[in-house]
């Protein structure tokens, strides 16, 4: 393997609070290879943003190590920032600057030479689909366009690595697709290394590797396909008329590995779908619980996330 683009070793971050020491990041070790798209996922407050900020050297670590492109997050902060792009969570671009002025501002902050700017700014705006909006105020852009402008700004100094903290929060599906298509192109054409925190499980599915963080610890680190394969059995979905009763009933049946609910639907994980399908239908009918057809569905990252976090809380007795 090449030298990793991002590496953390036993990374530790403690915050002192009035109630004692809070461990936000707990001996976290991970590696991201050059050209990978690494997704960091986890429940709210698990330590995703803290980890990102530690890697960038924006927070002082309590212990352990972290490096980007061989540069230490704390000691070599300036070399690191010259080579890394970052979109902070709920970032805001200066709304009273135009698209072009925002680009120029970012270029100035990153000390990009004027002749370089002349070449790169139009290229990046074209790439982000903002070529026709150079004179528009950033504050007047739609949500999706703001995110694309932020991406263009963070690429102005041609970083080899970008860290994106929930970059598509609150953006509609069309814009989210466009944003991820841009990331896909960057990876395919430029070999950019992408580290992204996301609450969207379909975005996690687009990553080459995914880390699941829970209470500051990395509990899973693998490809989406392997993570989904960690779920036992097959998943059946149906909508019962009485959710609570159906859930209790299914949980009590033989060969049922796990039951999850979503809205008015139940997701039941079974060892043998053909056999259990009929048994579930029989049991529901016997209890007089109306239901629609039971369908077998592919497990998605969404279900894997729920199952893995549940197992973790069962051992820890945590919040969820």
């Amino acid at each position, binding site marked *: 393997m090449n030298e990793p683009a991002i590496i953390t070793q036993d990374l530790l971050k403690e915050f002192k609070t009035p109630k004692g020491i809070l461990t936000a990041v707990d001996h976290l070790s991970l590696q991201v290879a050059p050209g990978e798209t690494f997704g960091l996922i986890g429940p*709210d407050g698990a330590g995703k943003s803290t980890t990102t900020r530690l890697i960038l050297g924006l927070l002082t670590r309590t212990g352990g190590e972290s490096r980007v492109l061989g540069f230490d997050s704390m000691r070599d902060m300036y070399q690191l920032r010259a080579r890394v792009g970052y979109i902070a969570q709920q970032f805001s671009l200066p709304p009273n600057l135009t698209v072009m002025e925002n680009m120029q501002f970012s270029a100035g902050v990153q000390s990009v030479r004027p002749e370089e700017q002349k070449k790169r700014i139009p290229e990046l705006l074209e790439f982000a689909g903002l070529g026709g909006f150079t004179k528009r105020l950033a504050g007047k852009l739609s949500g999706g366009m703001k995110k694309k402008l932020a991406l263009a700004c963070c690429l102005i100094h041609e970083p080899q690595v970008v860290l994106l903290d929930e970059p598509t929060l609150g953006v*509609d599906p069309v814009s989210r697709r466009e944003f991820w298509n841009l990331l*896909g192109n960057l990876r395919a054409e430029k070999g950019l290394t992408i580290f992204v925190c996301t609450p969207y499980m379909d975005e996690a599915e687009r990553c080459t590797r995914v880390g699941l963080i829970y209470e500051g610890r990395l509990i899973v680190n693998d490809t989406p396909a392997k993570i989904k394969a960690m779920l036992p059995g097959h998943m059946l979905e149906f909508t019962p008329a009485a959710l609570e009763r159906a859930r209790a009933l299914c949980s009590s049946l033989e060969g049922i590995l796990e039951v999850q609910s979503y809205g008015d639907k139940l997701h039941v994980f079974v060892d043998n779908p053909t056999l259990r399908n009929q048994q579930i239908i029989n049991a529901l009918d016997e209890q007089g619980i109306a239901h629609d057809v039971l369908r077998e569905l592919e497990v998605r990252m969404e279900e894997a996330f729920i199952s893995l976090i549940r197992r973790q809380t069962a051992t820890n007795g945590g919040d969820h």
Partner: protein
Amino acid sequence: MTIETRISQSQAFPILVQHLSKRFGSFIAVEDVSFSIQPGEVFGWLGPNGAGKTTTIRILLGLMKPTSGEAYVLGLNSATQSKTVHAQVGYMSQQFTLYNDLTARQNIRFYGGVHGMSSRELRQRIPEILSMAGLEGRENVLTSSLSGGWKQRLALGCAIVHRPRVLFLDEPTAGVDPISRRQFWELIYQMAKEGVTVLVTTHYMDEAELCQRVGFINAGHLVALDSVAQLKRTQMRGQVLEINTPDPEKAMLALSAARQEKSLPLDEAALYGAQIHVVVPDAQQYIEPIQRLLTSRKIQVSSIEWIQPTLEDVFISAVKSGQTKQ
């Protein structure tokens, strides 16, 4: 329509919107939108950013006057009877308006007080809310130290403390983790079963699939209104092929190029999770040509399948057809 039928209709539907338009100067935010929502229905109000979703909600809440048309909530005209409307509806927005320096219990008490509930009513109602929101054991924790999912459920609790019959939720789950989102949707369904009517906006298409009916608004126009299953049948222009490949990004580049050169009639090509979805006029006819194209670029193809469109495919199709019409 006579006034009598209008009144009887507005009373039959907890939410009724008729020929609603809202302009800001020359900008049209909402244009001739009409729909009605049944009692106990969970209705998804979907559309791209800036399509007019929040404007519609603000008009329904009586926070903004329409340029023309009417909005009724529980038979009350939102424009003229907003005070009465407020007493009977709950509203929760993406920015949960909670007081961070109050505890969970104090927040609920505060919102109950705002709605004129007596201490006696609140003594009974607060434990109910805490239990519904799963906040027992955390009732005395400062709101600032609750994590996203907890705050979100507290915000919902505050929005329903006065037992509203209609609930407006404007992107209530933005940025909340999947487990909290599920717990939240269970609460929504619990309330709907008790007869509460819910209008909810979301950018998560899997959540939209949970709604009994959805309305799509695009650039101020209502472009589709139906059950999810029906929308998938009627609103999709073309058929969806799902492509599995170990190198989706390279495949995307090849497909996008083909789309621009018009060498293949691809209406849309996008990454969807780890797969690629392309929209073609005829699925069976284009499996072969797509396979050939990718193989010629030395991109390995594991499978190409004709699939049912997802709601996201439908959403994108509806938005795009709206764009070409304008």
